[in-house]
């Protein structure tokens, strides 16, 4: 496998959706190519850190939001009776 092939297959590689023989070729290439090894580990680091970027909806606001939704839906149901 060459560098450009690995680059093209990287997402499928990370998804674990490559055929076994292609995955084996990718692993073999990464073991011998410092550039692709850096790209792979860097991408894996981004994926691992990604959940840190989640913005949480506070529990109190979440409960209020549900009540508002149910209220609007119930009102709408009443209007259609």
């Amino acid at each position, binding site marked *: 496998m060459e560098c450009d092939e690995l680059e093209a297959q990287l997402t499928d590689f990370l998804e674990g959706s490559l055929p076994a023989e292609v995955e084996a070729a990718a692993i073999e290439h990464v073991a011998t190519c410092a550039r692709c090894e850096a790209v792979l580990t860097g991408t894996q680091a981004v994926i691992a850190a990604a959940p840190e970027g989640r913005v949480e909806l506070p529990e109190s606001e979440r409960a209020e939001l549900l009540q508002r939704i149910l209220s609007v839906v119930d009102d*709408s149901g009443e209007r259609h009776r």
Partner: protein
Amino acid sequence: MQNATVAPTLTPAVREWLIELFERTAQAGYHLALRVVWNHDDALDVVQSAFVQAALHHHQLRDPQRSRSWLLGIVYREALTVLRRRREVSTAPSNLVETAQPDADPADVLALSDLRALISAAVGALPEPLRVAFVLRDVEELPMREVAEVLAIGESAAKMRVARARESLRVTLQGNV
């Protein structure tokens, strides 16, 4: 949506389904909306509107196994509608935050030491289509198939967007993650 397609009342079963869907999906929906509209109150409005639509049009959900991507798809379209409305009322369309949030300047990114803020700012600097795909796949951890369903694109196109987002973030965050 057409009034003719609106269910006249909500049965207890549908109400229960809506609450269960909310418990499973509200957090992801809020985060998705926030990453498009960049405003807490607008994001809450988007989520509220999406769940109300889901309740009133629940009969349009053909596959119950896909309720999460169906709901998040509504959230995404609602959020884009908010952006379009802003564009219509704005006198300076170029100032709209469609491609990056105002505080996502690379200089700001470098100044942030907290990993959470660093990632948040870097994600904010991504173009909207890549940002949303990344948020759905890598932050909210939806399967790629569901990412494609939410965005109403093919799975290969979703993979492409996720790949481009990851590559951009890898370069931006190099040495920090």
